[in-house]
């Protein structure tokens, strides 16, 4: 029976591994689900907002260790909040200066935001240097949790999972229960009509874009617990992120969650049985096949035409 318990332990760890890939994908995709899914803006610079969050965390971490070491164990929470507001504020500026002029021209938005992402990457390089940096993690994020002797679950994974759950729940509440969410959904369905019932759509757009960027910033802060941060850290994830949102069905938050879950689980299971790149090939082909059969994505609302 020795091999059975070993197999169980591997299954549990692999399952957790899948779950943490799921959380990472979901964290990245949430901001984009708002910006691309709800607003229909293709923001190629989304990854850079993630990087902003990661660098913010790094800066807070180094400031803490040099000026207030006693604050060390708790700085991370401050870093998350700061990441949200800094990424959000920059998002607000970008919407005001650039995106708001391009709502009628989706292809131009793609090009412009791609250019913006290059500018931002170079900006990071000039400010922080090309070398990757990492934040000093507080002790409670290090090491792992062992429910049994054979099972080894990393604490930072658990933390990211908790953060993802919290953020998803908050976003759901905001979009489906708040007045702001109602206005966002109305604006996205019919901009002209939303104005005609008294909604200030310009303000809604700006708020929505800023919120999406803020969420990306939080995702960036969470990433510093998993990997190190370089100028191009965010752009590595942008393709996966779009994949998750498109696969889930552009305007459905629930679809984004389901899609992140299925892609992550498929990926991590296949990775165990084959190799990393084969796993990617299989997942991508499956996604392409399913999208050919269901171009609207996994979840799409059914109403009369």
């Amino acid at each position, binding site marked *: 029976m020795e091999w059975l318990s070993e197999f169980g332990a591997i299954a549990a760890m692999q399952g957790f591994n899948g779950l943490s890939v799921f959380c990472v994908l979901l964290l990245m995709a949430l901001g984009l689900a708002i910006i691309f899914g709800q607003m229909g803006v293709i923001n190629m610079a989304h990854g850079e907002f993630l990087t902003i969050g990661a660098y913010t965390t790094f800066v807070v971490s180094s400031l803490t260790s040099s000026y207030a070491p006693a604050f060390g164990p708790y700085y991370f929470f401050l870093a998350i909040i700061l990441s949200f507001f800094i990424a959000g504020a920059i998002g607000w500026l970008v919407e005001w200066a650039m995106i708001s002029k391009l709502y009628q021209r989706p292809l131009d938005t793609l090009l412009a935001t791609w250019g913006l992402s290059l500018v931002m990457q170079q900006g990071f390089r000039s400010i922080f240097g090309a070398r990757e940096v990492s934040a000093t993690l507080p002790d409670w994020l290090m090491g792992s949790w062992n429910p049994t002797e054979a099972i080894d679950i990393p604490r930072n994974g658990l933390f990211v999972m908790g953060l993802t759950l919290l953020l998803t729940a908050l976003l759901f509440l905001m979009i489906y229960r708040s*007045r702001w969410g109602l206005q966002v959904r109305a604006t996205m369905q019919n901009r002209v009509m939303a*104005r*005609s*019932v*008294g909604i200030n759509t310009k303000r809604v757009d700006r708020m929505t874009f800023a919120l999406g960027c803020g969420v990306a910033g939080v995702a960036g802060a969470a990433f510093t617990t998993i990997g190190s941060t370089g100028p191009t850290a965010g752009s590595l994830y942008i393709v996966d992120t779009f994949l998750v949102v498109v696969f889930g069905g552009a305007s459905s938050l629930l679809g984004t969650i389901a899609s992140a879950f299925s892609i992550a689980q498929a990926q991590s299971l296949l990775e165990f049985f084959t190799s990393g790149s084969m796993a990617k090939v299989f997942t991508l082909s499956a996604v392409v096949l399913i999208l050919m059969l269901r171009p609207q994505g996994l979840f799409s609302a059914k109403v009369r035409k």
Partner: protein
Amino acid sequence: MFQISNLASGYGQSQILHELNLDVAKKEIVAVMGRNGMGKTTLFKSLMGILPQWGGQIRVDGKDVSKLETHQRVESGIAYVPQGRMIFSHMTVLENIQTGLPASAGGKVPDDLYALFPVLHDMRHRKGGNLSGGQQQQLAIARALATNPKVLLLDEPTEGIQPSIIKDIARSLKEIRNMRDLTIVVSEQVLSFTMEIADRFLVIEKGKFVVEETRDKVDEASISRYLSV
């Protein structure tokens, strides 16, 4: 109460509306009749600020709204039910009505709205897009009324709706007018509907008002001549 003076508007280079003048009294219902392509929808869109206004003035209760953006015009008391209803089809009936409510309402739909359209209360958790045409029209009117307007603009409300529901809509419009002291401007091609509700009739042709008659003097035959092709 609701005054339009020298209103001009159009698309790109081509002017559609030429120097329109109209003065609607409080609680009055005015019907703007005309065939397709004569400028009815253009008139309504420029009143809402959806189309750029080339010249002229629009006043609600003495306040000039010509320079305001669409959502500010709604705040100033103009509500709009567009042609084709344009409800938010992916949102529930309740949410559709809530989009029109001012922030101070806290998302609570006033009882008199549901009293006017009981069917909306029964279906409040259904998706707007799954309602029938007539129900969607009632929803669009309820959504507009939720903004608590002084003037209600309705663009071809009977289009594609069965006759029995048209009667219902006519009845509820008159009811709303009395209940909320509302001024109503409605564009139509169906004469029977406007004969039932309107106090005054205007015919629009090529962006100009060519006929104006009050209810007691109106000659059905002369107006219908303008409506036939």
